[in-house]
């Protein structure tokens, strides 16, 4: 069911920024993003390159549904540093990223996806729970495919992204989908 997928994980291969410079580049907004959004952006760009569907107008037929366990922790920590102390100056640009679902918006806006966008904070990377979320997303009848998966960023040195394309064929095949997701988590990196 899952044909196109990307895995980026800290400790394996180049950093997110190195992958960006090597494979993507020329998207100035990248450097303004928080670590979670950078990870999601890079993973989505590589995934969509692999899918080869850049020219297609997906509109409401494609959504972005991502999941993790640490929410926007990396950015929450960075923002907290700007609000502590008598001479604190809160950073507006850090504040806007103190929600994990910002990354879904970054990807949807970039690719003009107008379907379901959601971000779920789960206890852990549980393939069964992830497959439930993915199947549930297809309750939206217009949705034909999802850019989905696990995207967790505890800080700039501890992150893990498993992003893939799921289409409507997953409906009614939740156990099979969970098995495929579990198998992908066993693999190290692919981008």
């Amino acid at each position, binding site marked *: 069911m899952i044909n196109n997928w990307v895995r980026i994980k800290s400790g394996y291969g180049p950093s997110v920024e190195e992958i960006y410079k090597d494979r993507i580049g020329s998207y*100035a907004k990248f*450097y*303004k993003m928080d670590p979670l959004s950078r990870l999601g952006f890079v993973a989505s760009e590589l995934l969509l390159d692999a899918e080869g569907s850049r020219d297609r107008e997906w509109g409401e037929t494609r959504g972005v549904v991502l999941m993790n366990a640490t929410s926007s922790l990396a950015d929450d920590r960075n923002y907290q540093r700007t609000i502590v102390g008598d001479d604190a*100056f809160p950073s507006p640009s850090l504040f806007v990223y103190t929600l994990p679902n910002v990354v879904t918006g970054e990807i949807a806006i970039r690719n003009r996806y107008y379907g379901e966008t959601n971000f779920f904070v789960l206890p852990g990377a549980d393939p069964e729970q992830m497959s439930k979320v993915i199947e549930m997303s297809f309750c939206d009848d217009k949705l034909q495919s999802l850019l989905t998966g696990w995207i967790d960023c505890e800080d700039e040195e501890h992150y893990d992204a498993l992003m893939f394309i799921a289409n409507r064929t997953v409906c009614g095949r939740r156990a099979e989908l969970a098995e495929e997701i579990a198998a992908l988590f066993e693999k190290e990196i692919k981008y």
Partner: protein
Amino acid sequence: MEELILNLKKQIIEVLNLEEIKPEDIDENAPLFGEGLALDSIDALELIVLMEKNYGIKIKDPNEGKEIFKSVRVMAEYIEQHRTK
């Protein structure tokens, strides 16, 4: 004034995370918004914080901000006239 403009460019690059831009890439007479550096509304808020944090200038009126942030040179001229630190 030229030293202030250079410092301001460095500060803008730092606070706005303009990683691939050098001070000499920024035309001090070019508009900061809409064209030029193509900054957005969040960047405008960061510039307001920069003015207060580095120069002790509080900008409360959004319309005033529009005028002050026309270009780096206009910013520098405003700072020179109103700075408290």
